């Protein structure tokens, strides 16, 4: 359907594009900055790590929670990704979701989860930004099990690492559900410290979920 590069609007030569074996609707120039992770990766956060099987951060999470959230990052969080997120999420260019729509949705399908739960955004964000950045990429069924507790909301992206890690639990269950024995997939945009995802996973775990994994676009 898309025969133009989503970013620079240049016409895509479909034959060459197909030859690249990439599902991103980007021309070769725009695609240069989009990098995946090679091996070896951490079994927890999914980023490159020399320590196997868990990186230092994930070892700290295991010490704190007694379990580790197996996460998968599709791409590296580099300068390209930073400027992409700036354009898509903060400037609100919702059309840019099309870059990762196919890839992200396919990755979600591959996880074979019984329940798919996106990380929610606040109602205030819906009133100004008008979309949930994760749901822009994901085309499929999901259950909005999580809800943000109302309190003075400071964006995670504006905090330092220490402030992020000190964030108290922002999530609660949307409705009382029995998740006993369910395999649940959490969806988020960026894995930075893991704070948000661990809070969300903890919330679902108390409701009885058997296995929780997570997928982020970048990390």
């Amino acid at each position, binding site marked *: 359907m898309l025969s133009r590069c989503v970013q620079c609007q240049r016409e895509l030569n479909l034959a060459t594009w197909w030859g690249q074996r990439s599902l991103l609707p980007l021309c070769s120039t725009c695609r240069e900055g989009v990098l995946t992770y090679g091996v070896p990766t951490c079994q927890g956060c999914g980023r490159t790590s020399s320590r196997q099987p868990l990186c230092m951060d994930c070892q700290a999470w295991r010490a704190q929670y007694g379990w580790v959230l197996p996460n998968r990052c599709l791409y590296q969080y580099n300068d390209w990704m930073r400027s992409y997120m700036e354009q898509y999420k903060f400037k609100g260019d919702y059309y840019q979701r099309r870059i990762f729509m196919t890839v992200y949705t396919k990755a979600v399908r591959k996880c074979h989860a019984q329940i798919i739960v996106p990380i929610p955004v606040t109602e205030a964000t819906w009133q100004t930004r*008008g979309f949930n950045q994760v749901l822009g990429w994901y085309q499929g069924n999901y259950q909005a099990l999580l809800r943000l507790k109302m309190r003075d909301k400071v964006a995670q992206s504006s905090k330092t690492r220490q402030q992020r890690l000190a964030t108290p639990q922002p999530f609660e269950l949307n409705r009382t559900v029995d998740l006993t024995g369910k395999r649940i997939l959490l969806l988020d945009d960026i894995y930075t410290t893991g704070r948000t995802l661990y809070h969300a996973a903890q919330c679902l775990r108390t409701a009885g979920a058997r296995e929780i994994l997570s997928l982020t676009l970048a990390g």
Partner: protein
Amino acid sequence: MQTQLFWGRQLFLTTPPAFTTQMRPALKVGVLKVHCQRCGQATWRWQAALPRHQYYCPQCLNLGRMSTLGQLYHLPEPNQFSVPNQLLTWTGQLSPLQAQVAKRIKQTMQSRQTHLVWAVTGAGKTEMLYPALVAALERGERVAIASPRIDVVLELAPRLQAAFSQVEQVVLTGQTPQYRYCQLTLCTTHQLLRFYHAFDQLIVDEVDAFPYAGNQALLYATKQAIKPTGACTYLTATPGPVLQRQARREHWQVSYLPRRFHGQPLPEIEFQKIDNWRVRPLAPHLQQWLRQRLGRRECLIFVPKIADINPLLQSLRSLFPMVRQAGVYAADPERTTKVQLMRQHQLDWLVTTTILERGVTLPGIDVLVLGADEGIFFDCGVSANCRAGRSECAMSNWNGVNGGQASIGNDSSRAK
């Protein structure tokens, strides 16, 4: 929030301000397309869609997103200015020809007519505006001077501040977002998108320059920024055929000034054909010409594409390692500092794309246009060459051309 911020402007907000304002929808949703009320552009609905049946405008996103989640808030322009007693602090003299055009501008501004001022580069367009500006400011009118080029705006600002030192003025570019309510506004044409029925007099400098020419959003913004009773004055050195036709069709006033303010002729353009100037090492003529410039005068070298800058710089550096040289292009993060260095004579040669072709006054330089036959130079070759003789003395110029001399020749003879 202060009411002053809304006078003559249109601000997009998702929560209404505390006081009553006029309100317009941000976008009109049509059957197939959505129409942005700020930039006037139409976008396919599927491209502009947000979830929950909302829409946004992807075209003017960089000025802050417009969406159906909010409204455009506006207050009519009240013209509340305290006009100082002595307006003009400029003490220069206009030449008889300039005075004639200046008088004409003053008349058309007063009678609210659209006016196209066609004056060669270096004719002193800015100075010719002063009598008209004084009259307009005295009448208590709100005046804006807009240009598509940020360099032009930044160069104009100190000159106007000096000429009207008693008048409060605000300079608006994408890099300086602080807005103040002032009688005199200097801005890039993109910033006009934020105004609605604000100005009694709008002056657009360099109308034919990229990105203004042919940009529907900016043309729309110009119309929106002027009051229904206001007037618009266009300034240019090289009106293209489209602009000339429009002026004729819409019965604009046109004044033409073919002489520069110091009365010296435009610099002579010299053409020379080179088979391929992109080859390395550089063509012998080119090397020889450059060698003649060594230690004599600073030189501005124009190339048609950004991609040409680096290879050329490399070959220049290997040939002339002693020369202080740099390359500059539109998205260069150090663009302003490099131009500043050139002004302060800290650089000998500056390799540039067409961005420096307008509004940058560098006294006593030589200009070299490489690949002058490439499409991008057809309209701007003249102004680029005029850079050379501006302000001080006319220089000999030299152009490296590979073929296609005829079109450039036409342009320059027209400007002379």
